[in-house]
């Protein structure tokens, strides 16, 4: 187990900057997820930690020791790959045993024939066998040990890849989109399983994914990257409620956050589409964006809403409804969550009002940074009523 810290890390290929001044500390035993859209540099960062690629400058420390001069195998890390990267010509058992064989034997002990006659060979072999058996039991793949990767399903290969990573008790596990080749159902199942595995092992995990749902459900903390930049590092709860950047707010959460163009008057009051909201922030800003998550707004009678629009589509999710409402001055419809009862009463084409919960409204300035905002005490109090 180990703490992994990254200091002022840069990576560029010629002119292109892949990673820009990354500072990140992964605490001992933590499940840290690196999340971001494809091409944001998260996999490169993981490979730099593993030593598979080298940084242009900056430092990687494992347990306080700089490891930049160490080869991948000497960093004592395990890695699980998107394509699983199992050795196709070896059985499952041999695949899992490989990391320990390579580490606990020196070269002449690995020779094909000689190895068997060397003193101590039998004990070494039985030591390896028992470790492989323990891992196989934990992952419930005992019945697959003699097969080759080609004969396994995607989910089984995934488990074997995990087994190969677990077998030698590494300082940390690195996982590079390990679930993205699985079908949707299995992916959701494996989320839970990997999260539980982390609890059981108590080892540091660094997990790379482009799927914000995986990041939200599995992690202790999330590091959100975009365009080679580390935007925010926080717990799932925090990153959802308090995104520091409009790109973070957009990336996290499904369905996506609504972003409405707005302005701030001289008194500091936020207006959207010419309608004042009960939200105050720093005065005199133009071109701000107001972020409202679908669950932080309600549909109401037109005259009672903060803004008005036309209901064009109702998405029935079973347990809830999402109302798509177009607003005259905006290009994209706004998404608002309603409960089942209300959703069933709404009729398409109707003009409705939208009430925005001021407490959860997020204000982003011109450059996309989050600015502080607060609720203005209500002058008139009215309930949201179904249309």
């Amino acid at each position, binding site marked *: 187990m180990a703490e992994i810290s990254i200091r002022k890390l840069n990576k560029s290929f010629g002119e292109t900057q892949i990673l820009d001044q990354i500072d990140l500390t992964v605490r001992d035993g933590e499940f840290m997820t690196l999340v971001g859209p494809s091409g944001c540099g998260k996999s490169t960062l993981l*490979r730099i930690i*593993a*030593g*598979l690629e080298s940084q242009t400058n900056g430092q990687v420390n494992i347990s306080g020791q700089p490891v930049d001069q160490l*080869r*991948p*195998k000497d960093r004592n*890390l*395990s*890695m699980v*790959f*998107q*394509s*699983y*990267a*199992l*050795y*196709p*010509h070896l059985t499952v058992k041999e695949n899992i045993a*490989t*990391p320990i064989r*390579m*580490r606990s034997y020196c070269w002449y002990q690995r020779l094909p024939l000689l190895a068997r006659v060397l003193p101590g060979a039998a004990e070494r072999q039985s030591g390896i066998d028992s470790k492989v058996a323990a891992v196989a039991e934990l992952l419930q793949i005992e019945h697959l040990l003699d097969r080759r990767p080609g004969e396994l399903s995607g989910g089984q290969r995934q488990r074997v890849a995990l087994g*190969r990573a677990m077998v030698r008790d590494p300082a940390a596990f690195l996982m*590079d989109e390990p679930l993205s080749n699985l079908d949707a159902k299995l992916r959701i199942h494996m989320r839970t399983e990997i999260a539980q595995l982390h609890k059981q092992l108590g080892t540091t995990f660094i997990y790379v994914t482009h799927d914000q749902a995986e990041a939200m459900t599995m992690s202790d903390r999330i590091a959100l990257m975009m365009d080679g930049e580390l935007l925010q590092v926080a717990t799932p709860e925090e990153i959802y409620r308090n995104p520091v950047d409009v790109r973070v707010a957009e990336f996290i959460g499904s369905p996506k956050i609504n972003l409405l163009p707005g302005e701030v008057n001289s008194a500091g009051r936020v207006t959207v589409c010419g309608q004042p909201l009960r939200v105050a922030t720093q005065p005199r800003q133009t071109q701000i964006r107001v972020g409202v998550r679908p669950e932080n707004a309600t549909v109401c009678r037109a005259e009672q809403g903060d803004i008005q629009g036309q209901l064009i589509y109702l998405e029935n999710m079973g347990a809830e409804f999402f109302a798509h409402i177009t607003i005259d001055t905006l290009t994209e419809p706004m998404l608002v969550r309603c409960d089942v009862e209300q959703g069933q009463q709404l009729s398409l084409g109707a003009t409705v009002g939208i009430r925005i919960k001021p407490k959860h409204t997020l204000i982003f300035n011109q450059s996309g940074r989050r600015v502080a905002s607060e609720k203005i005490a209500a002058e008139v109090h009215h309930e949201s009523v179904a249309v």
Partner: protein
Amino acid sequence: MNRQPSLLFRLFRHLVLMSGAMVMLMPFIWMLLTSVKPPDEIFSSELTLWPQHWYFIENYSEALTRIPLMKFLLNGIVVTATIFLCQVSIAVPVAYALAKMRFKGKKTLFAAVLFCLLIPPQAVSIPWYLLMYQFGWLDSYMALIAPFSISVFGIFLMRQFFMTIPNDLIYAARIDGFSELAIIWKVMLPTAMPALVSFGIFSIVAHWNDYFWPLIVLNSPDYYTPPLGLVNFRNDDTGNDYGPLMAAATIVITPLVGAFLLAQKRFIEGITLSGMK
């Protein structure tokens, strides 16, 4: 196309293909028949297909004793096997580097490989001969093997195959603690087995059957490969003795033809590979 062709067409198909097959097989059949006939039946002006007297033992033992045919076959095996081993041990590392490493000059090197693919070996036989002369290797195994130790075709083929192996597999092997040479021989090569087998067949067939180069560099029968030995046998004064000559020809083609008949699919893949060049 799913319906059954008419009986007439089926007969026609077999008739045409069968007569073609007879033409294809005729030299082989005649070779086998002649190799078991006594001289008076071979040199008869009457057409007799089946031998009246079997002269099998006489002809084949003559073929094996008059010339050191076994020695030639052994030479052929030694030379083709060594060439193939050299080609693999030189081509595989560079193919791996070309497919998976980032280094300066890689593009130039690959362009050079593609250029060399265009060179037929006969076109460089004069400089090769001069090189062998300079090194003092004329009339030796070295002369037969050295110029073929590099196979740009092998490099190209293995590189194409390695390109299809995901980088993750190499990364996994590095983290697991394989050295780079172990990655090449223990991870990449076993994964590329199908390509290697095809290349092996291609290389072995090409060099077992090669005549041009051995003809140029060899003088003494000690190093003769089977084709050269066979021609030499024919050129002998006694070479007009067709029975033993055909027996020798049969012996020379048997190893490859036999292997081909056992593993047709692999062989056809391997030989047609040369079409990719």
